[in-house]
């Protein structure tokens, strides 16, 4: 972090014994606001631990003496072949195949976080570029991109994802074998259907940013469009991009869980929280632990991301509390209200 604390008029202050005025960098201001939100700070710590747990899952499983996620412990099933609950051997119980629930939850965290970060990153990349282009060039570029977004938003994404996953499960995958069912399809489907939200927001911000003086200044010295978009405007959009990408993460995690629950997401034997809940559907009346623990892992992770996203928004963009420009009809209303208030 850059320590840009400048003491303005420090010499004069010594003479006059007056209070020292300090200028604070944007990052400091942000951190001051963020750290006051205790709940969000707790959530951030939780997420940090979760990332660590996910990365260290194989080591951790060894260290705790927990069986690996796909090892079947036949002895942990009772006389009727039903799984047994929490015990010293299996802290969170086992599933119907005798696999350790704790171990599968730890490995499930890897999948959830991997999908969350990579799908969000791809969706953000597409969304930011599409939003920048349509907001900057306006005209027919904007028409094509914005109407394309409208069309994509009109497709029921959960059904489309189901169809894609079903289509890719036969023969040798999709696009001549390029996309195989499982992780790649999940990330692809989520990214393709999630970028629209960010595109709408970035477009709205770009539309107002392009009228600013510094853009005129850059143009007057002969900067190319590419330079203006990526060197002049993009850095000014860092805060909203961080905020709205973070807000996207929880819905991506829920999306992956939903696909895996429907059986078209992460394919067994890989462990995923949504798929564990799906497996639990048939036996949860006899094995509550198999429903409860993966669900709690999912809810707490999504909640933590939501809390951090909310706090980021409050800290980075205190004025933009209600940006509704991703809702159809709302962007127009926002523009009108902005004009009226000026």
């Amino acid at each position, binding site marked *: 972090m850059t320590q840009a604390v400048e003491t303005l008029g420090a010499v004069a202050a010594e003479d006059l014994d007056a209070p020292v005025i300090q200028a604070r960098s944007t990052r400091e201001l942000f951190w001051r606001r963020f750290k006051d939100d205790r*709940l969000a700070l707790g959530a951030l710590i939780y997420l940090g631990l979760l990332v660590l747990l996910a990365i260290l899952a194989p080591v951790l499983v060894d260290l705790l003496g927990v069986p690996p996620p796909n090892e079947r412990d036949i002895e942990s099933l009772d006389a009727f072949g039903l799984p047994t609950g929490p015990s010293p051997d299996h802290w969170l119980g086992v599933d119907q195949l005798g696999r350790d629930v704790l171990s599968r939850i730890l490995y499930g965290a890897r999948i959830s976080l991997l999908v969350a970060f990579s799908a969000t990153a791809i969706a953000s990349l597409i969304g930011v570029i599409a939003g920048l282009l349509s907001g900057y060039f306006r005209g027919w570029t904007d028409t094509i991109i914005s*109407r394309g977004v*409208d*069309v*994509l*938003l*009109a*497709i*029921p*994404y*959960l*059904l*489309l994802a*189901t*169809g*894609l*996953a*079903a*289509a*890719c*499960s*036969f*023969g040798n*995958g*999709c*696009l*001549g*074998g390029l996309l195989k069912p499982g992780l790649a399809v999940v990330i692809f489907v989520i990214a393709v259907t999630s970028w629209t939200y960010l595109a709408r927001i970035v477009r709205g911000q770009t539309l107002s940013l392009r009228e600013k003086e510094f853009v005129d200044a850059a143009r007057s010295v002969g900067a190319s469009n590419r330079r203006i978009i990526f060197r002049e405007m993009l850095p000014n959009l860092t805060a909203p991009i961080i905020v709205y990408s973070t807000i996207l993460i*929880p819905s991506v995690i*829920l999306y992956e*869980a*939903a696909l895996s*629950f*429907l*059986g*078209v997401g992460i394919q067994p034997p890989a462990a995923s929280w949504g798929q564990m*809940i*799906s497996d*639990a*559907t048939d036996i*949860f*009346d006899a094995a*509550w632990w198999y*429903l409860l623990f993966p*669900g709690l892992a*999912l*809810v707490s992770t*999504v*909640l933590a991301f*939501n809390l951090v996203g*909310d706090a980021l928004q409050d800290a980075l963009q205190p004025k933009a*509390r*209600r940006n*509704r420009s991703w*809702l*159809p*009809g709302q962007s*127009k*209303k926002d523009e*009108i209200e902005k004009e009226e208030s000026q």
Partner: protein
Amino acid sequence: MLEYILRRVLWGVAMLFLVSGVIFVIFYLLPSADPATLRAGRQASPDQIERIRESLGLDRPVFIQYVDYMKQIFFHFDFGYSYQYETSVSSLIFDRLGPTASLTFGAAILWLLMGIPIGIISAVRARSLLDRSTMVISLALISAPVFWLGLISLYLFADDIGLIPILPGAGSYEPLSAGPIAWAGPLILPWTVLAAASAAVYARYLRSDMIDVMGEDYIRTARAKGLPERKVVMKHGVRSAITPVITLLGLDIGVLLAGNAILTESVFNIPGVGRLVLDAIDKADLPLIQGVTLFGAFFIVIFNLVVDIAYAYLDPRVRYDDL
């Protein structure tokens, strides 16, 4: 206003065209498996497969197939033919629309009844203990996957397996024709579960918009002229803050009718449109999935249109949109 409606309707029709095209392309390009082979079943001779290919028109150029497909949709309202049920997709969808509509509209009423009052009260008592706790609870509800909430609710309350067996559980759906009580009973749990997250979203939206609106000058004016606070909140505050909620409502209902209730229908075993798709996955009944996806897109476009028009009616400034 009439001109605005006309423009929106025209754009809606254009959207339907574009969406149909996109869905056709996706389902045509992506699968590597040969549809005729899938259709023919396991023990088909090459001769039979060839005949099926011909009868489905799969031997013709893609472009002709596309034109045929579009013709069938727009002139005959034909969304394709299911391998698995050997009947038209549209008739299957109409059979399943009742349960999905029952689920969607019941849940929508419930989430409005919960979300709107909570949003208003939280805004009026902003930063109070009540406000802060309801906002954290609502965030937790938004964070919980609907299928997990559904299974937990079954574990707690279902009359066959629940700890407190007071409500009908999964697979007990009855159509409305069986009588309103027989119909509503099994839907109480699905409605509540489906409504929970939306109620929380609506409450949070309404709250933050209300807080903004209540700081406006005209609210001060309304108070200054001596209006009772209740009237200031309800007539001046809510009326202005409610428009995003209306937009959301239209989108949510469209999306749910379009098959996004698949998760709830799967957990509670409700024979709706989503369930139809779920059953089609194992059978690789791609025309059925494609048909339902397209049909769902139609719902979304129509509800978007309804929202646009309702919006223009509520906020006349929006009518002077360029498109």
